[in-house]
């Protein structure tokens, strides 16, 4: 057993280390990491950074600055309000930029001073404070107590009735769409790694030296395993960085089921990669040169593309019969099943059956693909047809 496993592992390690060290992989990883970190941090800063305001208040009752702050807090803004001696002092602070705005309470109806133009979020807060001041003045003229005034201004707060309550799936929709895109990109990306890896070994003729030492199946298995570990590792690092960045920037309220959804995406990545990488490897062996490889793999790439665009239809209406079928059919299951799980409640038997079918399909494919690989990998000069490769295998 050890002697059987060890060449596979040696081959996998080489795939893993040489690719991880390659400049292309490092650059791609760095760009992805930067994209994720910035994609989370920039919107978070944009939302939290400018939500702090400083307002100077001139005139009015002594409690007015506190009332302005309270009004701001009610609108979700952090408003620091401090009194100024008179209008001139307040205006000066706005001019110098020490304050975002000045609120001059008297004479009625009051005045708002801005440096350039009104700040869209702050303006309603200050207007509301002036409204309240005016209301208090009118109430005093009418002889109302402050409690009566509060009663008068209290909001209505109506009852809400939902006739057909549905859980809010908007968050799941986002996660499912992102997950699907990631799966599609990853299957293509790592699949093409296997494809080019096989063709490179074939075109540099190193494959004959390799096959004098290890069996074709071990060579293909090691390659698929090494690139697979690299892919899952890269995915895990990106996901971990995303999680940490989110936690630091703004802890999100994850919708229920997010973790199981992520687990589903990972599971289907592993299964989908197992399926497609073996196919890519077998098709790569049919080609002799890198240019031919893309042609050899074109049917597979085209099929994945078709499945991917079809999946966007599934996002709109996941209950259609053909989407159920596609989520069980091994070649399309890796893209459709996680999507369905996110958008609808998939019966457990369907998930189980899809996984089982997939595992059986991979088992069959390893044999079929392994045979094609074996039959084709030593053949040089032009592109082989699948039938020739099948017959060439022994």
């Amino acid at each position, binding site marked *: 057993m050890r*002697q059987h496993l060890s060449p596979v592992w*040696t081959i996998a390690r080489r795939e893993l280390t040489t690719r991880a060290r390659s400049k292309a992989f490092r650059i791609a990883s760095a760009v992805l990491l930067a994209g994720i970190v910035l994609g989370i941090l920039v919107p978070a800063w944009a939302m939290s950074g400018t939500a702090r305001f400083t307002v100077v208040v001139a005139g009015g009752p002594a409690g007015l600055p506190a009332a302005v702050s309270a009004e701001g807090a009610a609108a979700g803004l952090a408003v620091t309000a401090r009194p100024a001696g008179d209008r001139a002092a307040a205006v000066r602070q706005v001019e110098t930029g020490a304050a975002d705005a000045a609120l001059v309470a008297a004479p009625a109806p009051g005045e708002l001073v801005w440096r350039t133009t009104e700040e869209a979020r702050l303006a309603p807060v200050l207007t509301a404070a002036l409204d309240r001041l005016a209301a208090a003045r009118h109430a005093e003229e009418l002889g109302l107590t402050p409690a009566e005034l509060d009663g008068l201004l209290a909001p209505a707060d109506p009852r809400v009735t939902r006739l057909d309550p549905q859980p809010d799936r908007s968050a799941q929709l986002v996660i499912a769409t992102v997950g699907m895109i990631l799966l599609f990109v990853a299957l293509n990306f790592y699949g093409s790694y296997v494809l080019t890896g096989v063709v490179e070994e074939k075109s540099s003729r*190193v494959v*004959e*030296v390799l*096959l*004098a*030492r290890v069996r074709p199946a071990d060579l293909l298995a090691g390659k698929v395993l090494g690139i697979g570990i690299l892919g899952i590792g890269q995915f895990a690092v990106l996901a971990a960085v995303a999680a940490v960045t989110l936690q630091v920037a703004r802890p999100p309220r994850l919708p229920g089921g997010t973790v199981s959804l992520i687990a589903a995406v990972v599971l289907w990545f592993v299964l989908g990669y197992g399926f497609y990488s073996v196919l890519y490897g077998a098709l790569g062996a049919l080609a002799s040169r890198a240019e031919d490889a893309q042609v050899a793999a074109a049917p597979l790439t085209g099929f994945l593309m078709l499945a991917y665009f079809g999946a966007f239809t599934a996002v709109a209406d996941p209950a259609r019969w053909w989407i159920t079928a596609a989520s069980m059919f091994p070649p399309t299951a890796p893209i459709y099943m996680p999507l369905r799980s996110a958008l609808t409640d998939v019966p457990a038997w369907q998930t189980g059956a899809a996984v089982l079918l997939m595992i059986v399909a991979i088992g069959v494919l390893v044999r079929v693909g392994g045979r094609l690989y074996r039959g084709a990998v030593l053949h*040089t000069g032009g592109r082989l047809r699948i039938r020739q490769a099948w017959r060439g295998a022994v």
Partner: protein
Amino acid sequence: MAAAVGEVGTLLEFAGVSKSYGSVRALDGCTFTAAPKRLVGLLGPNGAGKTTLMRCLLGLVEPDAGTLRWRGSPVTDEVRRRFGYMPEERGLYPSMPVDEQVRYFARLSGLSRSAAARSARAVTDRVGLGPELAGRRVEQLSHGNQQRVQLAVALVHEPEVVVLDEPFAGLDPLGVQTLGGVLRDLADEGTTLLFSSHQLDLVQHLCQDVVTMDRGRVVLAGPLEELQQATRRRHIDVTFGRRPAPGWSTALPGVAGGPAAERRVRLTLAADGDPATVLRAALAAGPVLRFALEPPSLEEMFREAVHR
């Protein structure tokens, strides 16, 4: 047809090995043996089946019929772990450093990490790759040095059977000398060596045994000396002290060649010719300074064997 040098239990044996690709018979009942401590040259015109034969031995091609045995047991994947192979189409990872590459192939042959490192250092030294080249990527090396890396890869796991397909192709005289020396040393250490070549003078110089193939068949196999002895064709080199009488050799039975009026002449003696008759005729034609009976060269034997 088989050469029987060395004890039977030590031999590499091909017995009736056949392989067809569609209607093309690449190997047709190939039978011969190779013994340790002897260099075996595999000869044959292009398309004779040499590469297919080697690929069968290495397990890259499954023969349709026949058996391969080494030291009396069938050649299995397990046995092949002790074989080393250098293919005709040289293949290395172009962007992998030399030392890493040699270690990698050692690991694939089942060596432990430390044994692979040790063996890789020893073998790169042996094939004449300086330590300054160890960290260089293969694509940065000259053709000759890439060939040395290829040889190092074939030898790194200290194989007991070494098979090389056209190892001398494209090497300069210095490279030929180094490689020849390495192969000679390996043979002396007890390795069984089989290599194909089109350079017949080189094979004659290096090898003790030859196997000649033509159209998938082994047409001539055995120790070079025995084959030369066995062939009834001979050369006769005669040197006279002065010009001999013209036409002295033309009437002799079984003798061809000339021009017989030169002071130095090489005659070919067919199977039915008698050297003693020639010697008598030569002595009558003039003062003989030298009279030598030579076996045919490998090239002549080769031409005769493949009927070309």
